[in-house]
């Protein structure tokens, strides 16, 4: 009996580790050449796109994109939940159940922010300016090298 339970758990665990189809849950999904945030970006994948993922390794999935490109994506950018896009984005999911719609389309989203702005409740000027601050991987690499930052355990 105990062996059967262990075997069942092992099968379950193996099933979880081998990810299968996962969906991008961030606005700009980044596919990197190596399993590191300092790795070169080889492709960008849009919010809601589906990738085929292999076994999770230290926070990173090896992924294959629909066009056949391969690379690594950090687990924080992917979800098992299906991402139903907002109506009007061209990629809108049809017939998604209430759970699946959870990621987009309805909820605390652009529509609610637009209402906040229309009601004159909040000024987003500086939020937008702040969100526009961008730092490239090359800038980070240079900053680290010049500052003799020799970490990088991950």
């Amino acid at each position, binding site marked *: 009996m105990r062996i059967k339970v262990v075997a069942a758990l092992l099968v379950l665990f193996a099933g979880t580790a081998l990810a299968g189809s996962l969906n991008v849950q961030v606005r700009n999904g980044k596919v990197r050449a190596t399993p590191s945030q300092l790795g070169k970006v080889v492709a960008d994948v849009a919010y809601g796109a589906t990738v085929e993922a292999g076994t999770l390794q230290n926070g990173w999935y090896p992924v294959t994109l629909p066009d056949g490109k391969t690379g690594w994506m950090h687990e924080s950018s992917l979800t098992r*939940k299906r991402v139903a896009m907002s109506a009007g984005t061209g990629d809108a999911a049809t017939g998604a159940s209430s759970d699946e719609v959870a990621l987009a389309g*309805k909820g605390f*989203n652009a529509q609610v922010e637009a209402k906040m702005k229309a009601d004159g409740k909040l000024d987003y000027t*500086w939020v937008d300016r702040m969100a526009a601050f961008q730092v490239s991987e090359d800038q980070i690499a240079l900053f680290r090298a010049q500052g*003799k930052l020799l970490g*990088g355990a991950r």
Partner: protein
Amino acid sequence: MNARQLLAGIASLSLLGTVLFCGCEGAGEVGAEIGRATGVLSDSQADSVARGAQAVEKTFQDLTPEQEYYIGRAVAASVFQSYPPLDKPEANAYLNLLGQSLVVFSDRPETFGGYHFILIDSDEINAFAAPGGLILVARGMVRCCQNEDELAAVLAHEICHVSMKHGLSAIKQSRLTEAFTIIGAEAAKQVAGEELASLTEAFEGSVGDVVQTLTTSGYSRKQESRADAAAVEILRRAGYPETAMLAMLQRMDTRLSDSGGLGFAKTHPSAASRADALREDIVDTGSTVNTVRQQRFAAAMQSVVAGQ
């Protein structure tokens, strides 16, 4: 309603109550089905109970990165009303470079809109982490840091509040239940009219809960110590001396006791007790302050520290 219906109704409601408190998944649907079958609830009422029950079972952990992003934007916009941003392109560029070089070593490097950092014009020894990664650092906090390593410790701590969703955890469950009930309604892809107004109200309430925690009531002691420990781990991975965290906390302790409990002191456990909790986990590699790091910190932050 006759006695039989009344009894069935009481039975279904108490069952609903029991299973909800158990937190069993799908429990609400069972209660709704019983209500429907016994004729106590109409079909639309039953659907509403089922949806409500699904919503009750969801917590802040069920907020998607996209929802977290929109909450965070509104939180930052709200905090800016009391703490105006500092329009200093060079200092903010340096702050973002330093911040991003730490984010890459966090356990949650990817959020919906990414991490972004900005200085705010306040003499308080304080910093705020809005959900999703918008991090605000007061001038007074920069003054408290003697070098890049110590500012890195501050930013790493705030990054950890974001990655651990500490801001979102402040949102009252009732608001989330309201929001998830509306989101869960299957009719339309987009909400409108009254539903949009209710959703916006739940959103405003949620944002208010987070802002209140960030600026007034503070996170729990446990959340602070978890963020401290994870921040030390980021410093270690990134190559900064872990002792920078202790140095920063010690200076903060001195200055906060001088300031009479404003800013950070109001929302954080005492810096001395935080330092004590961390001390035995911190490895002193005996590294000296790196000249390049010292110089670039001074160059970028000179005008900020001077209060110009």
